[in-house]
């Protein structure tokens, strides 16, 4: 017979999923937040995003080609995702050279040093952000005043984010404009503006089964619960509901819970492990926000829990088929 018989062991079918398709879905899910940001801050958002993405891709390309000397890994699109997430963590008016330094730290130090995608213990975009936050605190925390493309509905904080304003005592959470924070018309890092747009992206990823609900729900749920208990101990009143709602919509809560904490490589492998990890992030974030030196603690919390992930993977095991019945 003219046929050539190919043999391999089962299974002989494969799901349509690939690393590339998953990363493509994450990119799509980030688009609503990018659009809101561009509408609020204008074209500088696209400029910052483009620089971040191009530098991340370039750094990965150069290191893979000249230091690791391996086949190109750009096809898996993970460098694009890191670039987008890094940009989302920056103010829209940041100088271009700081973005490039952020990309070198994110991809060069946090990712490729460990062998590239799949081997990095910490979320690359967050390592880049935290490095920049410590190295360039002034540029990283001065946000442009909002000059919205869509006019009329804006309640500006002229530079200071709600979290910073609350921290310094300039703003009470009860007075914060939650509607504006949810919609995206309150100042802050580019991608953190609109809780609604980030939630839409999260729902898209859930629908496409890119992520499961465990981590976002654990992070946001534990933050809300923590804020509620704190408000209760401080005497309740109007803060009882304002404090949890404020913290869910402020700063990097949504971006962190939906896009950063769910990073495959640096989060646990079992549903139970994901819940533990998510609660850890929520609690640490709230502790830093309420009692720490920084107004925002999401990045630190995620990086700290990234460090705990291997330990969680070692001790938290999936339910074994058959053990339930055996106990009866």
């Amino acid at each position, binding site marked *: *017979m*003219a*046929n*050539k*018989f*190919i*043999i*391999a*062991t*089962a*299974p*002989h*079918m*494969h*799901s349509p*999923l*690939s*690393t590339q*398709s*998953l990363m493509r879905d994450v990119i799509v899910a980030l688009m609503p937040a990018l659009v809101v940001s561009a509408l609020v801050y204008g074209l500088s958002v696209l400029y910052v995003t483009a620089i971040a993405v191009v530098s991340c891709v370039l750094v990965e390309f150069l290191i893979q080609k000249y230091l690791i000397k391996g086949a190109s890994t750009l096809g*898996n699109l*993970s460098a694009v995702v890191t670039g987008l997430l890094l940009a989302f963590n920056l103010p829209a008016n940041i100088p271009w050279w700081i973005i490039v330094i952020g990309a070198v730290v994110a991809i060069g130090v946090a990712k490729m040093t460990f062998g*590239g*995608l*799949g*081997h990095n213990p910490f979320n690359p975009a967050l390592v880049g952000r935290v490095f920049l936050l410590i190295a360039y605190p002034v540029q990283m925390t001065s946000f442009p005043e909002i000059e919205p493309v869509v006019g009329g509905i804006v309640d500006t904080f002229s530079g200071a984010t709600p979290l910073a304003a609350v921290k310094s005592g300039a703003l009470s959470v009860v007075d914060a404009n939650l509607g504006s924070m949810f919609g995206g018309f309150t100042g802050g890092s580019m991608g953190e503006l609109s809780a609604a747009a980030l939630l839409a992206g999260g729902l898209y990823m859930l629908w496409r089964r890119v992520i*499961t609900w465990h981590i976002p729900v654990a992070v946001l749920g534990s933050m809300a619960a923590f804020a509620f208990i704190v408000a209760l101990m401080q005497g309740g009143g109007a803060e009882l509901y304002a404090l949890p709602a404020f913290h869910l919509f402020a700063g990097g809560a949504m971006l962190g819970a939906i896009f950063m904490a769910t990073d*495959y*490589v640096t*989060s*646990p*492998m*079992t*549903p139970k492990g*994901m819940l533990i990890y998510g609660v850890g992030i929520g609690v640490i974030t709230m502790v830093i926000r309420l009692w720490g030196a920084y107004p925002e603690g999401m990045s630190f919390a995620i990086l700290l829990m990234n460090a705990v992930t291997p330990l969680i*993977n070692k001790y938290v*095991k*999936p*339910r*074994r*088929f*058959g*053990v*339930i*019945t*055996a106990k009866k």
Partner: protein
Amino acid sequence: MKTFPIGGVHPSDNKKWSCNKAIETLALPDVVNIPLGQHIGAPATAKVAKGDKVLTGQLIAEATGFMSANIHSPISGTVTAVDLQPNAQGLRQMMITIKREGDEWMPEIDRTAEVKRECELDSAAIIAKIKDAGIVGMGGATFPTHVKLSIPNGCKAEFLIINGVECEPYLTSDHRTMLERGEELLVGVEILKKALGVEKAIIGVENNKPDAIASLTKIIKEKKFAIEVEPLKVQYPQGGEKQLIAAVTGREVPPPPALPIHVGAVVCNASTALAVYEAVQKNKPLIERVVTVTGKDVKNPCNLLTRMGTPISQLLEMAGGLPEGDVKVVNGGPMMGRAMVNVDSPVTKGCSGITVFSGDEVRRVPTSECIKCAKCVAACPMGLEPYLLQRLAAKQMWDEMEVERIPDCIECGCCQYTCPAGIALLDYVRLGKQTVMGIIRARAAAAAAKK
């Protein structure tokens, strides 16, 4: 709708090509090759020699011990060889070769189409008849049915579960059998109930076969069978014995070495139930079965009633021949079937289908780095961590693999199917499982020797 509790995947079932094709009888082969080992357990012992004349349905090889099965001649003619022949994988295996001369059946076999409902035999007599007929699990596992029906001391069967799930994509042989031979199959189920002494029998059928569910339900109602049909939510690997028991009864078989009987369940394949009917009521041994021949580029996908030992090439010809170019011909379905190099090898008792892959399907997807997406952990129906087992196997860390419960693996392939990085997880897991099981057996043997 019920299903099993942990993991599972949803591959496209691709049954549309063959599920509406009625069972056709394949022309008798001129020559058959009958492997002596085509079931789990010891290969049968040949009872014929070169030059012997045999009739259709005549015993030609006898079970070697309890854990083995009889084999009968599927045609009448002359034995031309009892020798080593290449099997589907190209490995040489003991086979009986028979050249066909007409088709003369053993006289005691009832070949009429009349459905015989009453069965006067007691449990032991039924099991003996099943053993004589050489019946084994026809879903692919080929576990001798008489062994399954012999309940170990201290255990009691409560349920008989008939596996009509056919969760393997592409395959439709059980589907067509349930649809076209429903009444005889149900009599087979009643006989199995009697053999086991159980009151309750449930046929689990996935919901992608509504016609089979409707037809069986109708016959049960009209002819008053005490059998239930349970439609199940479509999910692979629901046809796995443990998954099916959990889906139908909610009981989970404890980890190995526990068996289904420890939760009171005995599972038999739907086609096996029909074979039981034919053996007990019609004295007909297991000499033919329905084989689905299908694939994306197969011209005429079909369900063929085929005598055992027929060369697979004859079935492929009936289905319109192989597509052009590189192909992967799989004995069984795409998730657990075995790719073959020798299409002249024979149809055996466990061959429920021949799936032909062509074009892009024949090669595996490219492999990249594990991104720890946890999809394999979520997909594993046994609650294992395939990514971890893969790493341990790659490093030959056998003791650690045992701690990570590698013997639980049922080799369903969900992990590898779902892996976005295209890692051959099951290859590593299978290697690890074989090695660890070897270590466990050696340890048990050493402990026994000490005593």
